[in-house]
């Protein structure tokens, strides 16, 4: 019954989405309010229908309904309750359904929140969001059905179908339970609770700005309406995508045993690419809002972002590129490729059509090369260059060499470390300079004056590092560039608060709060820049100064790395509740003769594959990170460890948190708060003046 309900509601959602597309397009073209409302209702209906469908699959997972082939493939009787829930996105069919549910949630929220304010765009917003949703639901129904069940036919053949074949009987539930696969071991980690949902939210979230942009092109409402409607949606999607990337990094650090958080793996890069273009869009969109410029470019960026989302999904799920992250390969590659190509061609065609008609002309003229808009254009150019370089390394070069030179190649970390650092450095420099420039025109002398204090602070920062013993030129330059961006953000916040304090007599905390409340976008942006700065410091430290060694040592013996020692204390084996064999070593970390931590690096052996679980002693200064590589099989008298010292690596996670905080500030709809703070401030100011 569970499968039947799930399948029926999934099919009903598919039909509702298709109907919404047809009704909204017809209603939009004929200006028929009734049809548009009907389309809206059908679109709204997709969410409860998909929620029921997803709930049915979840019930199947929790209740161990192994006749449902998806449940059989991602869980087994030993799978804990928690991982039964997360198994919902543990393989292709479930993750596609979950993806559709989230997309429907975004679409429904956008319709409800923007229905009155952007009425003219709505028919086309419905059409684009529902067409995308219908495509993914079609994949679920016709290619990767999560409700397929096992059946035994009369000739004893076991088949997997969504509908009951004639004269078929279900297999023995005991036999199914005995043979169930269990969840991919790589997915059994706390990071996997929220990493995939965050990434999916980020991915599907970009469907809203894309749909609004397409609606603007289709309806002819090419003002900044679509941007005003979608800026917050874009920020939310960008936030989730960023959060997903950071959590993914943490997962890789804890589970993959690479000793690092970013391996330039094609699927990691596939998620990073839309983030890059989305970031360019979030900056570029300000030029259109402030100056009415870059209309065509912004359209291209928003299409590029969503196109990168679909391409990344296609690359991950089609098996186009081998990756440790490709959990869900199947035959959906071709339809996804067609959808991606079709969607991109139609979108670009629409832009060119409007452009040709002269409807995307800039409203203002450019005034000077030295202005905030030109620096933002430069920022966009660098983001695009970074996008192209990473795309080329991850997908372009391997595909081109395979297609035209009949040779498979892999571009590894060395490629990305050659190509990307100069571009990241340029972005950090712009992050420091651009906020100090004015719209329209900034003279060099004014820019120089504005930069003086942050530059002095940066010089002092670098000098302190030099005095502290750092002699690596690349690191000093890198920290200088990254530091400048951070000091500019801090200095701007300080200047704003100081102005309020001087003018209104506010205390520092109140002045700072009021500052953020009155211009969340600007100061939220500075906090985001601070987060990126902190991440940059962490990345430079953990990349340039990472130390590693691998050695085999006997029981009681120590190995030395930097000013640390690692002592091998013992070896134990244990069976976990889920049946995996855990081979655990006890080690002691010693620094300056003092024992500072006891760690238990281990290897977990699942039927599918072994997992290397690191032991880590984390401080703000660094991570002492140990991997168990091997041991003497019988006596365990010797064991081989790989030890990393990862300086400042924790700043990557802390910077991520600051980035999230900044994005929340920038996206928070807090007009009433701003007004309240403002009124309070005015009241205090008057009272102060009266006194």
């Amino acid at each position: 019954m569970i499968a039947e309900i799930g399948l029926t509601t999934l099919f009903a959602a598919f039909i509702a989405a298709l109907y919404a597309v047809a009704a909204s397009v017809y209603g939009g073209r004929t200006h028929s309010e009734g049809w548009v409302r009907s389309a809206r209702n059908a679109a709204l209906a997709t969410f409860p229908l998909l929620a029921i469908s997803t709930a049915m699959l979840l019930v199947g997972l929790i209740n161990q309904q192994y006749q449902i082939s998806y449940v059989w493939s991602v869980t087994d009787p030993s799978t804990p309750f928690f991982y039964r829930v997360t198994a919902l996105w543990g393989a292709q069919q479930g993750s596609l359904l979950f993806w559709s549910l989230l997309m429907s949630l975004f679409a429904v929220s956008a319709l409800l929140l923007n229905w009155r304010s952007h009425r003219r765009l709505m028919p086309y917003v419905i059409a684009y969001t529902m067409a995308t949703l219908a495509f993914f639901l079609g994949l679920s129904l016709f290619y990767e059905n999560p409700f397929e069940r096992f059946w035994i036919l009369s000739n004893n053949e076991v088949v997997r179908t969504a509908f009951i074949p004639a004269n078929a009987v279900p297999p023995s539930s005991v036999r199914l339970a005995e043979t169930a696969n269990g969840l991919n071991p790589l997915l059994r980690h706390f990071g996997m609770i929220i990493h995939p949902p965050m990434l999916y939210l980020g991915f599907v979230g970009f469907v809203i700005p894309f749909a609004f942009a397409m609606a603007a092109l289709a309806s002819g409402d090419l003002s900044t309406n679509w941007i005003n409607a979608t800026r917050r949606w874009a920020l939310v999607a960008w936030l989730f995508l960023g959060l997903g990337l950071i959590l993914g990094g943490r997962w890789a650090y804890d589970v993959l045993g690479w000793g690092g958080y970013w391996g330039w793996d094609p699927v990691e890069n596939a998620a990073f690419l839309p983030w890059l273009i989305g970031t360019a869009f979030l900056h570029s969109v300000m030029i259109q809002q402030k100056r009415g410029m870059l209309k065509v470019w912004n359209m291209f960026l928003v299409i590029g972002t969503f196109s990168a989302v679909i391409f990344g999904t296609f690359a991950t799920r089609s098996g186009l590129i081998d990756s440790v992250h490709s959990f869900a390969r199947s035959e959906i590659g071709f339809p996804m490729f067609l959808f991606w190509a079709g969607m991109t061609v139609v979108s670009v065609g629409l832009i060119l059509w409007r452009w040709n008609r002269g409807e995307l002309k800039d409203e203002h003229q450019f005034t000077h090369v030295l202005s905030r808009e030109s620096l933002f254009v430069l920022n966009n150019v660098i983001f695009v260059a970074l996008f192209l370089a990473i795309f080329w390394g991850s997908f372009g070069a391997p595909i081109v060499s395979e297609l035209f030179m009949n040779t498979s190649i892999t571009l590894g970390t060395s490629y990305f470390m050659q190509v990307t650092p100069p571009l990241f450095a340029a972005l950090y420099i712009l992050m420091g300079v651009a906020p100090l420039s004015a719209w329209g025109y900034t003279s060099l002398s004014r820019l120089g004056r504005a930069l003086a204090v942050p530059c002095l602070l940066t010089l002092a920062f670098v000098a302190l590092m030099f005095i502290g013993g750092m002699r690596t030129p690349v690191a000093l330059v890198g920290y200088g560039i990254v530091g400048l961006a951070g000091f500019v953000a801090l200095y701007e916040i300080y200047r704003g608060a100081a102005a309020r304090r001087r003018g209104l007599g506010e205390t520092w905390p109140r002045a700072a709060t009021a500052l953020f409340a009155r211009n969340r976008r600007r100061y939220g942006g500075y906090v985001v820049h601070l987060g990126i700065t902190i991440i940059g410091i962490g990345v430079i430290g953990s990349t340039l100064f990472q130390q590693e060694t691998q050695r085999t040592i006997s029981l009681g013996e120590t190995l030395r790395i930097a000013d640390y020692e690692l002592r091998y204390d013992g070896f134990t084996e244990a069976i976990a509740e889920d049946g995996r064999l855990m081979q655990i070593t006890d080690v002691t970390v010693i620094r300056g003769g003092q024992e500072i931590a006891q760690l238990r690096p281990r290897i977990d052996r699942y039927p599918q594959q072994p997992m290397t679980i690191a032991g880590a002693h984390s401080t703000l200064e660094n991570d002492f990170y140990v991997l168990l590589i091997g041991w003497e099989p019988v006596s365990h008298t010797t064991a081989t460890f790989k030890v990393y010292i990862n300086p400042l690596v924790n700043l990557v996670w802390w910077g991520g948190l600051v980035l999230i905080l900044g994005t929340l500030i920038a996206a928070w709809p807090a007009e009433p708060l701003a007004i309240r703070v403002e009124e309070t401030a005015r009241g205090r100011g008057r009272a102060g003046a009266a006194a």
Partner: protein
Amino acid sequence: MTRLIRTLPSSPWRRTPPLHIERGLGGEVTRNWIVKLIVLILLPVLALPAAAQDVIITDDEVNAVARDMYCPVCENIPLDVCPTAACADWREEIREMLASGFSEQEVKDAFVLRYGERVVGTPQDPTLRALSLVTPWLMGAAALVAGAYVLLRWQSRRPAAPVVEAGAAASRATDDDYRARLEADLLQRR
């Protein structure tokens, strides 16, 4: 100038004169690939374990080479951190090769010869390497040219009247709304 590589009596990787790498004045490397291929084909037959008896190659030295290599089976996981048995075997093979005097580059060349370009993080073939490494810079340059074109196009559309530096007050006026409002507040208080 010829650099002679040490020979290891007990090693199956022991160098014979044709295997020596000869470096010309320009640093150009010539290799006897046919002989090397024969050695590589015979590799499984030869008693590898004997190789490492004389020269001890540490795990760190092996990992330094393996870091930029990938086995064709494991999915984009660098060889130095891949936990599978197949990759452990490869690392042992690298150890033997290093012990017998192969340089890092020669080890990579040998693996590429056997398994193709995919096993290394940067293609060894000059054409593929150039294609891989030069293309992103060309694309970056193209993006920069496009950006410059946009700015120049904008500038050429600039109104004829000279743009006077607006000074602090006017510049602030074109700055963000908040700053303008803040300045207004401050002026009021004065």
